[in-house]
């Protein structure tokens, strides 16, 4: 077990290196118009040349790659051409918002996904089963940005029940930064008004991100529950005369819950990927919105940095899920 974890941890830098290389060549293979965009259409040749030199965009690709890798080893992710600030600083500002959103979506996903999957398995082939599975498949088929806009239309514009974007009401000050996650920070500082408001702001984006990723969780919990229900110990529990409710929701569900852990690893990539669209729709100032804006400015450094951060987070989440899985289920050995 320890050897396995160690091995996986050692693989992590390798994954990062490969991802960095792939992303570099993807973004730099087309001659960059980054400078032109920064300086505007009326910039003179001399100006363009100077800026190109300053950012090293005139060197051969291989040299640029070497420079990029060297800087990477020093923890330098480059400077945004547009804001002229180190990308690392921007990432640290924006990342907590994305984590907060993804975590909220994950909680929603696990709670709703497990319930739907369990109900669907217990009442197999019933109308309820069809409804649960239809909801899960329907979620995947929805364009995330469109679902978000529809939620805003109904719950903000038409009914006014929930806020339509941002992390906090403009009249409220953000809580003292401890983790950067507003819900957690306001809880820690005991700022109840801010806590309530930040939760309200989280509901729609988290729902959008969660609903569109439901199907994997539901399908996995359903099939693992079906498998569990056919096992001997369930038959025995029934023979003992335990009520259906107890057999289903205590004995069977407990074992199927382990599946949910794998789902955390598997869906984290989709959640982080979906965050770009959902954050854009809800003006949620996370790394997704940051990436979307950088792309429109042809600003290389932030795009590369966000992609790497997402890939690393994805790899770490998968590692955590695998380890948790082994810890929770003593039958698994590595």
């Amino acid at each position, binding site marked *: 077990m320890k050897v396995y974890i160690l091995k996986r941890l050692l693989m992590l830098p390798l994954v990062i290196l490969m991802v960095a290389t792939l992303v570099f060549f993807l973004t730099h293979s087309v001659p960059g118009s980054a400078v032109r965009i920064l300086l505007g259409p009326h910039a003179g040749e001399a100006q363009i040349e100077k800026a190109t030199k300053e950012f090293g965009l005139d060197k051969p690709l291989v040299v640029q790659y070497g420079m990029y890798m060297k800087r990477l080893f020093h923890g330098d992710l480059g400077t945004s051409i547009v804001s002229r600030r180190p990308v690392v600083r921007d990432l640290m500002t924006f990342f907590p918002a994305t984590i907060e959103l993804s975590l909220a979506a994950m909680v929603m996903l696990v709670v709703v996904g497990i319930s739907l999957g369990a109900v669907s398995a217990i009442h197999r082939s019933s109308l309820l089963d069809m409804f649960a599975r239809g909801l899960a498949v329907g979620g995947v088929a929805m364009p995330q940005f469109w679902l978000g806009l529809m939620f805003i*239309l109904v719950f903000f514009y038409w009914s006014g029940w929930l806020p339509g974007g941002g992390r906090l009401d403009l009249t409220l000050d953000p809580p003292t930064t401890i983790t950067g996650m507003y819900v957690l920070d306001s809880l820690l500082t005991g700022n109840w008004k801010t806590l309530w408001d930040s939760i309200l702001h989280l509901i729609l984006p988290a729902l959008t991100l969660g609903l569109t990723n439901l199907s994997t969780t539901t399908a996995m919990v359903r099939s693992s529950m079906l498998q569990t229900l056919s096992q001997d110990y369930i038959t025995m529990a029934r023979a003992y005369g335990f009520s259906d409710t107890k057999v289903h929701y205590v004995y069977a569900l407990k074992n199927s819950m382990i599946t949910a852990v794998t789902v955390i690893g598997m869906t984290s990539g989709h959640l982080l990927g979906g965050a770009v669209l959902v954050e854009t729709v809800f003006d949620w100032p996370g790394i997704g919105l940051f990436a979307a804006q950088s792309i429109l400015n042809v600003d290389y450094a932030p795009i590369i940095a966000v992609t790497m951060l997402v890939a690393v987070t994805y790899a770490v989440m998968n590692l955590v899920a695998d380890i948790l899985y082994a810890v929770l289920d003593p039958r698994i050995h590595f």
Partner: protein
Amino acid sequence: MASQNNSKKESRLSYAAYIIRKSPMSLLGLFLVAGIIFLALFSPWIATHDPLKINFDQGFKPPSAQHWFGTDDLGRDVFSRIVYGSRISLKIALFVVGIAATLGTALGLFSGYIGGVVDIIIMRVVDTFLAIPPFILAMVATAALGPSLTNVMIALSITWWTWYARIVRGEVLRLKNLNFMMAERSLGARLPRMLFRHLLPNCVGPVAVQTTLQLGLAVLTSAGLSFLGLGAQPPSPAWGLMIATGRQYLPDQWWMTTFPGMMIFLLVMGFILIGDTIRDVLSRDIQ
């Protein structure tokens, strides 16, 4: 052998027909996709207006008998734009999946069958691509190529072949040492014959399931990229771009956003339901 093959094929077909009859969901999937293909093929006859014709004094009209889905900010008929937009979505889906499936299947076959260094290199490349969430990868590739619909198609094709490579390689590894392969090899069959006559037909099932799922995913992703401004550019009637434009006019002109999104949903849903049906038919073979 031939007759046996035929009867197996026949039974599979009749089973497919049985499943379609029995499950209304698969029928719905076929109906949705066929309906949208119909829209794309006969757009000029179905559309009630010119999708690109700007008509300022007809702007922002709500749905009515004349404009079924209303008009947009430039007075263009939303229904007609949606009808023509189906061509864009289907074109992207077919192009991307065609290239990705061909490239991925070929690389997967070689990787699995030849093994050794070739296998290691191809699989490490696949792992690297898969380490980045698909939407982010598509976004980076499109951003690098520059925003346009063609670049979206190129970006998706060059990043999405990896799934096919992995699936096909797995199948090849499973089949490689079965008796019929050994027999063929010992009879002196050459590499192309082994790959395309014997291994490829056996990979068709899993590839078909992946293909239908990816058709849907290509529609969703390209719409998302268009929404971000990376894909289709105005005045294109691409559904994702229509939603992006409509967003500025919420909540009053809700029809500009609502209808194109519904079309994306219906098309993707259709692909997913067809994929599920194929999976059901195939899983019976395995049993």
